[in-house]
Every structure is written in C-alpha cells, then in structure tokens.
C-alpha cells in the first residue's frame, strides 16, 4: 500500500495556513460534548491535554507516574530550538527547517518539518508567558546557545534543566484545566490496549497500578503521547518506566509502526560502570559548546588524562569535521567515538569512553562562567562517577537515547486508524533518521499546543459525539483479553526474573541492532529474539498477584512487548539496505566511513502492519517527496 501523508498542496510556507483554513471546526457549544483521551503527560501529552481542555473539550488524561510532572521530558537538559534569530546570526525559519531535514538525513517529511520550524517561535512566546525562566542577559533579553549540527545559536535554555522547566510550564497549564474540571487526571494508570470500534479508535483499556483493576474508557478520539522505546536496549538514557507498550499494542490493533530502526545513540553519556547498572545518564550535548572531545593517540594508553601531553592527544571530531568540530551531529559524533574505541584508543579502564575536556574553556572563560553555564551537569557527573570534571576531563560514551521511529501519522498527526492521533516522540514524523539536539522538546510542544488542537477538530467535526460507551462488546473483549494476559503472566512461575530477560534482550539488541548493523547481525537478532520470547513465556517468574500494586507485573508486560518489538526493529533495519542517520549499515558506507544513503531505493517511510506475532509484518511505503530542498550528501566537514 502506498500511504498518503496528506500534506497540503502549495508553497511550503503556506501549507499549514492552507490546512488550517480548510479544516472543519467544532462549535464552542459542542466541544464539551466530545471526549478526548490523552495517554501520557510528558511535554506532548500535558500540552495537548491542557490545550484541548482549555478549548472546552472533555479530556481524560492518563499517566503511569504518580504525577504528570514526572514525565520523562523532565530530564531533557540542554534546550529548545526556535528560529527567532535574536542573536542576529543569520537564522531563519527556512534555515531551521533545512538544518532539521539535513540533520535527519533526508528521511523526514518536508511539510511537517517546515511547520515545526514555523511553530518553534510561538512555543518560546508561549513558554515565556507561562513563566518558564529561560536564561536572560543583563539587559533582560533571552539568551541563546548552540547545539550539534547547526552553525547558529538558536537554542533557548533554562540552565541545564530546560526540559524540566518546559514540562513544569505545561504541567501548570494542565493543572489549571484539572482545577477547571475540563481535564480529569488518572495518575498511576497505564494504558494497555487501544479499542477500535467500526474501524475507529474509540477508547483505551488501562490498569490502575495501585488496585490492579483493569478498566475501560470510551472517547470520541484518542491521543497517544507515550514517548519513545529506547529501553528496548535495556540500558538507555530513558526513565526506567519508559516503554513501548501503548504504541505497540496500538500497532497490534492495526496502527502502522513507522521506521522503528531509526534510534538515536547519543554521543555524550556517562559510560557503563558495572553489570548491575540499571540505566545510563546523559550529559547534555550543550557541553560540546565548550568541551573538546579527544582520546589518546596511542593504543591502550592508560595514563590519567592530565598526564597525556597535548601532542599525544587526538581531537578527532575537530580533525575529521573541521567545519562543525565538536558540534558535529549526534549520529556522526557517536560513530566517531565508537570507531576510536574499537581501534583500542578508548579512554578509561574499560576502554569504552572518550574524554570531554573543559580545560581550554576554563582557561578562556574561567571556572565561574562554566559553573554558571553547566554547573548542575558537572554536579551530576560527580555524583555518578565520583570525579570532578573541573579538574579532569569527563569520560563519555554513546548510549541509546531517542526514538525517531514511532507510529505512522499523516500531516494531521492522525495514524492510519481514524480517531487515533499520535504526538511527540511516540510518532515518527519530524526527525527523519536522526534528531538534532534541542528539537525533541520543540516537537512535543508544537504537537501539543499548536497542531493537535486544530487537526483533531477536523476529525471530530465529522463524527457524532458519544458514538459508543464502555458497555460496547469491544470494550468487554479488551478487558477480558487483558485479564487473561495478566493471569497467564502470573501463572508461569518460572525461574528467571523479568529484569534478566530484559538484560538479555538488551544485549542482543545492542550487539546486533545497535550503533552499527549489517545483514549478518540483523539476521542473528531475528533468529535469537523469538527463542528468548519463547523462553520468557515458559520461564519468567512474577511474584504477587494481579489485584494489587505489583511492579514486577508492570515490568513483565512491558518487557513482553519489547520482546516482540525488538524483532520488528531488526526487520526494519534489515530491509533498509542503506545507511542514514542513526541507521548505520556497515555494508553501506563511503570510502571515508561516512553513511551511504540510497535515495533511489529507500527515500520512503517504512510503515509496518502487524500480521501476527510469529509472522513477518507487512511493509507499506510513504514516498518522501522533496520539492524544496535538494537531496544532498550530508557533509559536516
């Protein structure tokens, strides 16, 4: 099937306005009659729920945490992009658009990305009005800094806690609507199923994580804002609870999953220290504004970094990418670091790390300036490693971070299932094969504040409100299926813990579907995963019961989905015989080691349709059409 992204016709700059003008509206008096479900309350979910509530819709919001303020968007550190051109350094909406599309290795959708660049400016205005304390200069104006893959300073930031402050802004807006009564919040509640009636998404089934009760909620439309799936690798920068379940179960109900193999490996994370490690911590990319990345020139040089003289250091990003240097994009910087370590020139006792050195910046700017810019990041680094990065360079290594893939959506953020909208990281739409820094926050908020409020009305205006209620047989079936699933999980009573399975899956994924893949490794993963899955269903041990707070049971459901989803990722990576962005196939590279894209054969979105757990999924394509930019080789040299 050839998928239609439903982008409006006409010049790029007019597309969004055109669409807004052609969309149907719901009259203010009718809005409260429509019920909308928002699953997930991170940046995309909180902003969507708040804005839809403010418009007068009847919103039910769900999150697995105890409070919407804890969505993982809160952990984003460095900043949010906008094309304000406040620094007068040549930025523009077109340039932000172009950087993003190039950064994504020309695997994103032009119209979406342009709209994102346009809306970026509204986001900053909105957040300032909400009281987000962005950094200011002494005259009272907003400050900017730079991020990877760009040559202008367009990143707005609130110290190293930008995600936190933006989320608290959205959480405030959401709290206001909860007080107003337009939004009903369900914390500690996890979405486990999507309910489709007559081909349209009409509700969800959830588990109350405190009582264990499985409950159904009917609505006129459903918005999934449930984040990314990088935890398929077990160790990632994601929160422990981040999972693929909501998106994956929607996929099993017929929503297409697009580009699952596009995952971002972030170059600047704290290296793994031990077997029992539960997660990896990211150090903001903004550190590369002032930090210089290097490794020893000699193999297996185990001297402490300060003892290695300048002449024996290799500043490999500056050497290989002189134009962008330490601000080379994430996929490029990650691979460069991995190559160096694979050569045996890695830093630290494990050899899997490179140095991020601030000595020059301290000399140039003084320690105080650095403390002002990144103080909390240095503190965090010291807590985790016990090392003072003002005195010795940080050790960093790439780690799984952000999912560019996600459920397929059209320009209206609607999936192929009518009534199912997908926002933020949970959809696939705006970042192509690689996401540039400081643009995840931008997309989450653009989707929630400024896109979904318009596009959802077009769907709702064409559908009668209250078509179904929780008494519909589809809801009963969904609830019974989930109760059966819970019973099945609890009855296995095997010998291995859920975490052991997750670690094993993570190892398979990282080794074979990680930063570099090839036909052989992918086929190996596709062979190994079903075996592990079978073992899981025969040998997992989950204590307790289903009618109480049971964290092992929660984890088990998520890992069960990862055990299927991992295979989908590998299949997607295997079929894409090219290298692009975060998807690097060793067979497809230039003589100098850079990614070799194949625009002739793979310039499309790969959207997969579920056909059964043990059957291969069916591929549908949405051709990517570039009318305004030329498909160029990505060059950061």
């Amino acid at each position: 099937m050839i998928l239609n992204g439903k982008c409006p016709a006409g010049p790029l700059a007019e597309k969004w306005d055109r669409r807004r003008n052609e969309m149907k509206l719901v009259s203010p008096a009718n809005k409260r009659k429509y019920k909308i479900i928002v699953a997930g309350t991170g940046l995309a979910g909180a902003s969507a729920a708040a804005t839809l509530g403010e418009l007068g819709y009847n919103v039910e919001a769900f999150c697995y945490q105890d409070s919407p303020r804890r969505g993982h968007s809160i952990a984003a550190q460095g900043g949010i992009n906008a094309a304000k051109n406040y620094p007068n350094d040549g930025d523009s909406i077109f340039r932000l658009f172009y950087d993003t599309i190039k950064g994504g290795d020309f695997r994103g959708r032009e119209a979406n990305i342009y709209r994102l660049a346009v809306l970026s400016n509204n986001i900053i205005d909105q957040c300032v009005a909400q009281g987000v304390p962005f950094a200011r200069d002494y005259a009272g104006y907003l400050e900017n800094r730079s991020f990877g893959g760009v040559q202008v300073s367009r990143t707005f930031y609130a110290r190293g806690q930008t995600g936190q402050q933006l989320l608290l802004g959205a959480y405030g807006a959401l709290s206001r609507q909860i007080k107003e009564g337009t939004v009903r919040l369900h914390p500690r509640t996890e979405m486990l199923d999507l309910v489709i009636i007559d081909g349209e998404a009409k509700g969800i089934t959830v588990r109350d994580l405190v009582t264990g009760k499985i409950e159904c909620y009917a609505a006129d439309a459903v918005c999934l804002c449930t984040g990314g799936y990088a935890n398929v690798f077990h160790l990632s920068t994601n929160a422990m609870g981040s999972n693929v379940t909501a998106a994956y179960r929607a996929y099993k109900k017929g929503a297409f999953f697009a580009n699952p193999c596009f995952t971002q490996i972030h170059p600047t994370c704290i290296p793994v220290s031990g077997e029992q490690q539960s997660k990896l911590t990211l150090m903001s990319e903004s550190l590369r504004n002032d930090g210089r990345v290097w490794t020893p020139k000699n193999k297996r040089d185990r001297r402490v970094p300060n003892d290695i003289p300048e002449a024996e250091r290799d500043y490999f990003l500056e050497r290989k990418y002189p134009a962008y240097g330490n601000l080379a994009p994430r996929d490029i910087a990650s691979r460069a670091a991995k190559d160096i370590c694979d050569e045996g020139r890695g830093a630290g006792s494990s050899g899997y790390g490179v140095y991020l050195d601030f000595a020059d910046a301290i000399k140039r700017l003084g320690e105080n300036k650095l403390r002002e810019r990144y103080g909390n990041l240095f503190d965090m680094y010291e807590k985790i490693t016990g090392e003072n990065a003002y005195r010795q360079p940080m050790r960093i290594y790439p780690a799984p971070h952000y999912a560019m893939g996600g459920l397929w959506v059209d320009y209206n953020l609607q999936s192929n299932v009518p009534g199912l909208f997908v926002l933020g990281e949970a959809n696939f739409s705006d970042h192509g094969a690689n996401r540039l820094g400081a643009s995840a926050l931008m997309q989450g908020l653009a989707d929630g504040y400024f896109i979904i409020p318009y596009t959802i009305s077009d769907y709702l205006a064409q559908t009668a409100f209250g078509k179904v209620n929780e008494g519909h047989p589809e809801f009963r079936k969904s609830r019974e299926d989930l109760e059966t699933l819970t019973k099945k999980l609890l009855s296995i009573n095997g010998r291995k813990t859920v975490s052991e399975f997750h670690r094993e899956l993570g190892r398979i994924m990282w080794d074979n579907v990680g930063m570099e893949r090839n036909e052989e490794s992918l086929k190996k993963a596709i062979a190994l995963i079903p075996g592990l899955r079978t073992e899981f269903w025969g040998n997992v041990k989950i204590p307790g019961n289903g009618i109480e707070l049971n964290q092992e049971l929660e984890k088990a459901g998520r890992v069960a989905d990862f055990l299927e989803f991992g295979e989908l990722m590998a299949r997607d990576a295997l079929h894409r015989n090219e290298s692009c962005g975060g998807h690097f196939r060793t067979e497809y590279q230039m003589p100098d080691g850079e990614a070799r894209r194949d625009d002739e054969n793979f310039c499309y979105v790969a959207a997969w349709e579920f056909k059964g757990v043990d059957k291969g999924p069916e591929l549908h394509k949405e051709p990517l059409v570039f009318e305004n930019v030329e498909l160029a080789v990505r060059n950061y040299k």
Partner: protein
Amino acid sequence: MNLTLFIWRQKGPDEKGRLEQYEAKNISAEMSFLEMLDVVNEGLIKNGKEPVAFDHDCREGICGMCSQVINGVPHGPKEKTTVCQLHMRNFKDGDSIYIEPFRARAFPVIKDLIVDRSALDRVIQSGGYISVHTGGVPDANAILLPKENAGTAMDASECIGCGACVAACPNGSAMLFTAAKVTHLAMLPQGKIEAARRVCVMTDAMMNEGFGNCSNHYECQAVCPKGIKVQFIAKLNREFMKAVIHRKGGF
C-alpha cells in the same frame, strides 16, 4: 561490600507495617542505592518472596519520583542528592541501613516504601501557575526580565516536587514546596498579576491537605535534593502578608 538492611514492609494503606531484615551481598561501590535494592529484589524474587515496592523512574535525580528515608534522613546521608543519585560508595562494608517511606499525615503509605504525594499536585492545582491561554501571547522579548530575577525564579523552580521537605519537617509542612512555586512565579512580570490570589489559594490548599505549618526547623532545606532555600519561605510569608493587607473581599 555486604550490608544489613532494615526495610519497612507494609502491604497496603490499612495494614500494619514493620521493619524487616535483609542481607545485601557483593554490592559494588559504583552502584546507585536503587541498583543495590534492585539486586536485593532479584534475590527475593528468585527465593519466591515478594520484592520491596519503591517509587523510582528517571534515576538521574530530576523526576522526583524516588522517595525513601535512609537512616532517618529523606533521600539519605548525602547533601543535595536524590536516592537514585546516592551511590554505594557513600556506605561502608558491614553497614546497617534503615530504609523507610516518607512519613507525613498528607502522604499516606500505598505499599512498602511508596507513598501517595498527590496532595502536592492539588496544591499546584489550586493556583500554582500563570493563567495564560495558549496562543495569542506577546513576543518572548516584548517583556524584559532582569537577569537576577530570572536567576532567582530558576533557583526556586528547580524544585522537583519529591516531598522530602515534608518528610523531614517535624510538622509535616509543605511550606518549602509551596514557597518555591510562589517565589518562582512572583519573580516574573507575567506571574505578578495573580500573585496575591495565588499565595492565598495555595496556602489554603496546603492547610486543607493536612500539611502543617513552618516553625523554622530548617530540616526541609537540609534534605532538599535541589538545594531550595528557606529564604523562599520568608518570601512566601511576605507575599502572603502583602496579599492579606491588600485583600479586598475573599479569594
């Protein structure tokens, strides 16, 4: 290292809880406190026992989900550190460690180390925000803001809403939490308009949720993982006095 743990176990809100003893063996100094508990829990599961339920999520000190009292101190012995960022290098081989849930009247225990902190959300819902509609706002640089004010607002808004301040306070007071939000918004021109109303409704909400009053013990500041200062409580009091003096009618 090997440790002896005394962990609070409580099946549900209405059940009686008690401390139970567990052994944590072969713990490395690099592990975080929660990773140490993960290891203990895996052992319990393998032995057919119920693992200890505890709240956690981002494990990088920012989401505010983790909430344990370690050896009598919320978030444990290290200053400005959440439990998830507390590493085992802060303990010694052979140590005994007492692990309990956050305790406060407004935070009922749900299970083991998990408490219900939704009272804090309701304090925010009472008015801890700027009532701005989406869209139609002025350009971000249209209203200037002194760097110092932005800095102070940021210092205050760093609060992660973990509730350690409440758990550490002999009165179970949420004054530091509320003060942080009131200060954050009062420092900004956009937040000034509702400042008087905000401080009154938030203070009322605080009382209604069963949080106590501040009587200057400073325990909140001592345990705050983000270093939120008690000066903000003074600011809260000033804002409150201002509001009461100028109060016309009720809020």
